[in-house]
């Protein structure tokens, strides 16, 4: 019975620890992927004036995964002739603050709306903004992500000590 309780409580602690860890990790990977997308837009638009949809579609699977369906939501709005709305675009992403969500929405809303020169300037501006978000998400990950795993392990040990 004791062993069973130890397993249950330890799993509980580890589950929450891992959940917070992956939340911060996913946030960091998300902003990394967003910055990668900005770079890709910059290169592809500059070199071949490639269309927005083609650029997004040609992203590697790993990057698409890290974008947490942002790419799919954007393309689906376009293909279904729907106007781009913040809720539709960010529907599968829960870890963004209001400010971050607004910036991402404005970034996607600005895509393809101007000539090359201005489009590249806009992308650069958004990239700078996303870099700040990325830096803060990276710090959060270092601070809280790893901490949550450590706390979970400590909690597990405490459970073991308490029960033994």
């Amino acid at each position: 019975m004791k062993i069973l309780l130890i397993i249950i409580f330890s799993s509980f602690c580890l589950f929450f620890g891992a959940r917070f860890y992956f939340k911060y990790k996913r946030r960091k990977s998300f902003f990394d992927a967003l910055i990668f997308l900005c770079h890709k837009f910059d290169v592809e638009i500059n070199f071949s004036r490639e269309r927005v949809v083609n650029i997004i579609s040609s992203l590697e699977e790993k990057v698409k995964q890290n974008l947490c369906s942002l790419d799919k939501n954007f393309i689906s709005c376009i293909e279904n002739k729907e106007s781009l709305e913040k809720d539709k675009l960010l529907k599968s992403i829960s870890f963004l603050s209001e400010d971050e969500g607004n910036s991402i929405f404005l970034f996607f809303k600005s895509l393809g709306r101007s000539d090359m020169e201005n489009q590249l300037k806009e992308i650069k501006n958004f990239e700078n903004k996303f870099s700040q978000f990325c830096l803060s998400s990276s710090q959060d990950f270092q601070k809280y992500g790893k901490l949550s795993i450590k706390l979970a392990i400590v909690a597990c040990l405490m459970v073991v000590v308490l029960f033994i």
Partner: protein
Amino acid sequence: MLEQILPSEICLPLTKYVSFNALNEIRLRVDKPIVLSMGSQKFFLSSHGTTGNLKEAIFPSKTMIEDIIFRASEFSIYSVNEQIKRGFLVTQGGVRLGLGGDLIEEKGQIKTLTNFNSINIRIPHEVKNCSLSCFDYIIENGNILNTLIISPPGGGKTTFLRDFILQLSSRNFAFNVLVLDERGEIDLGSKGCIGNFADKISFASKKVGFENGIRSLSPNLIITDELGSSDDVQALLYACNSGVSIMASVHADSVESFLAKEDFAKVIKEKVFKRFIVLSLRNGPGTLEGVYNENLSRLGRKY
């Protein structure tokens, strides 16, 4: 293709009630009725098809017009800005949108067109064998004579050129044809309408297209649409001096009005073109008015 760029309130009545074979143009203006040109007739578009009643017509909003242009650019205005600067936009399917709006100039250079207020959608057609009656006049002893197609706008010049290329291909005339498609209309947006023996350079000016094409693709025949400026004429003369045959088109009502164009004085004087084919809208687009030789004598039967 139109389904992808037009909003459903315009697209539905168009696809349901209007025959695309008869449709030549769709004109959309902000807060004005949509006008359809079908042959020589014009109608308004209503939610239940064509109408002559202004009250039933659909009036597109400014947002609708901008949305159509954004969609036609495949959500990437920057990728078609060079076309927009010149007042048009060609979709992937070869549909040409003429654009009206405010031109932005900076230091004497056109930067872009913005604040769009009207669109003229030209529906491309493939009229099989429409060039056939002129075929024997253009080819002489296995050579293609320099030929100019003359017609007013919407008179069927591009359709004629497109069919001529296909006729060459279907008859296995293995000339190396270079299609200089400045507006992306001849090949209907890469739909493969240029047969088996043609290379294509799209969206390049005549000057760049002629020079690069002759150097890199060594064509026997260059086919191009809508000669207009003196630069085009210079490029044309360069090609002729390089020993390449030319087939081109120009906007004019008749041979006489073509002869009055000052930019073409040298071309006329040097008798660069050996054949003139005149098309009109008299019995609908593509009506053949006559084929003339370099001395402007009508050839063959009277049409």
